[in-house]
């Protein structure tokens, strides 16, 4: 009884870290720019394929390509921002959310089908020489790849936190979250802040995608389910707190695996969505957020 339950909860925790990482990127972009980029899951997919091909064609270890994948997604982020999202900076907040949702949706359709065309619908994953290695604690298995992913997700989170708290640019970002009009009056270049947060979100998606391709699997259609997970976690955690978002990811992962354990695996996806709607209706500020004003 204990070991199988603990095992599934541990797996939930480990995958939850990746949900958290995906959601932190989404939430960073949404918090600063009010862009709801629903193509975030597709950016994650691109990151996954980048490290998959680097490993398959060149034999480069996925943990080594992680920074490269992030840079790659950063460049894609710049292109997408300049091409599409820069047009929507000046809209009112509500129109901005609405239009970025629609543009992001169109973008996800394009990226998904381009990926399908280039790389077929096959499910892929990276199998390294150490992929099957795991250590056991109290009878519970901890696959080292997934534990390493949790560690990397935490490092990325702390680096982000440090950047936002300690650097001038980070403070500019946080100021924009608080009140963009006041931030502009203080001489903060809002266009630069928007661009920066957008590409940082893309880079985080790239990192998450890379980790997903090592510990789990990727396919061209994975984007929507990852975007939904990101949205669920973003709402669970509440806006404005990246730690809350990350914890929200772990809550979602553990809830999913507990559902898989106590009910059936087929309802794993449903429970997150139900939780999401309940939180939206009854606690819009998120489980860990505080009410505005």
């Amino acid at each position, binding site marked *: 009884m204990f070991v199988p339950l603990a095992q599934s909860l541990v797996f939930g925790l480990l995958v939850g870290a990746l949900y958290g990482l995906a959601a932190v990127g989404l939430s960073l972009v949404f918090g600063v720019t009010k862009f*709801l980029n629903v193509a975030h899951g597709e950016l994650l997919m691109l990151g996954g394929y980048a490290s998959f091909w680097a490993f398959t064609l060149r034999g480069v270890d996925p943990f080594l390509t992680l920074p490269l994948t992030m840079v790659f997604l950063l460049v894609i982020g710049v292109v997408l921002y300049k091409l*599409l999202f820069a*047009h*929507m900076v000046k809209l009112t907040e*509500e129109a901005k*959310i*609405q*239009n970025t*949702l*629609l*543009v992001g*949706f*169109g*973008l996800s*359709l*394009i990226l*998904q*089908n*381009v990926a*399908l*065309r280039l790389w077929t619908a096959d499910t892929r994953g990276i199998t390294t020489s150490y992929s099957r290695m795991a250590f056991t604690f109290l009878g519970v298995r901890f696959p080292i790849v997934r534990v390493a992913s949790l560690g990397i997700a935490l490092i990325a989170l702390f680096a982000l936190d440090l950047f936002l708290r300690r650097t001038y640019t980070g403070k500019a970002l946080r100021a924009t979250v608080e009140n963009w009009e006041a931030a502009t009056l203080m001489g903060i270049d809002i266009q630069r802040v928007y661009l920066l947060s957008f590409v940082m979100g893309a880079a985080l998606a790239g990192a998450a995608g890379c980790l997903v391709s090592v510990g789990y699997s990727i396919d061209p259609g994975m984007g*929507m389910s990852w975007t*939904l997970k990101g*949205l*669920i976690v973003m709402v669970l955690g509440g806006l404005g707190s990246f730690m809350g978002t990350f914890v929200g990811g772990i809550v979602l992962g553990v809830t999913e695996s507990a559902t898989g354990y106590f009910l*059936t695996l*087929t*309802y794993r*996806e*449903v429970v997150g*969505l*139900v939780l*999401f*709607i309940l939180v*939206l*209706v009854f606690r*819009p500020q998120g489980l860990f957020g505080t009410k505005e004003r």
Partner: protein
Amino acid sequence: MGRKQVIFIALLIAILVLLPVVVKKDNIINLALLVLLYICLASSWNILGGYTGQTNLGHAAFFGLGALSTRFLWMSGWSLLPSVLAGGLLAVAFALLIGIPAFRLRGVYFAIGTLALAQILYITVGNVFSDISSLRPQDLATYQLVPRYYFFLVLALLITGTTYLLVNSKLGLGMMAVREEEEAAESLGVSALKHKLLALSISAFFAGLSGGAFAYYHVGYYPRFPFSPEWTFDSMMMVYIGGAGTIIGPIIGALFFVVVRELLALKLVELHLIVFGILFILVVLFLPGGFVEAWKKMQAAFARRSKERGVKVSFQTTDD
């Protein structure tokens, strides 16, 4: 409506009615039927999404519920029309059930909330009804495409006609007021919640009926298929590309969608979705009124140019 428009519409309806009489090829009738199906879906989405300004990403849920219940009732011996009607009513019941909590969510949260709801239904229906749903042997033996085509034609006319009446009524004006500026509408005594719920119910009712027609039309499919998010996304794209918040927009969008898809499907299966994705983005960014707006702009530019020329001519004559 001007006299020209009435004649044009009457002519169009006559062509659609006569189509199966003139054309005997099943694949052409099937294509026309698909256009009508998408007109039904897009036009019903447009009532809430285009006229009332609430982006519903869960339209497939209503379509699916209509298909599911119609198929079930029809197969268990009910006659067709009551089954389809029941499908529409079930969709409305579901819409009302979710509408009140969903409309507590503003703007984007409504969109994501409805998407989540539709996904819940999609997965759950797939789990509960995992077997393929096929027509009974006696239905298969007598299966004919033409009555299905007329069924969809009547439905498309019903939805378009209702939209026309609605838009020109007080209710329709209230819906558009809510879309433009909710606070202002409320301050003038237009209840936003009432108008949104009404638009959602009408939209869901028609989507449910379309689902019923789909259950009547389709020979064999997995029960979760009509719940698939593509139905929502395709409808939404058709509405935007054609022209959101217009009557003709979804019709043009649906026709364009099916024709382009058929043309491109010969070459590459996925290509049409890439094309639609690009067009959709371009419309959202640069041409919020879709094809309808583009057409109006072109007409206006044309009228201006001929006017300018007219002025020039008269100027020259007076000069002489």
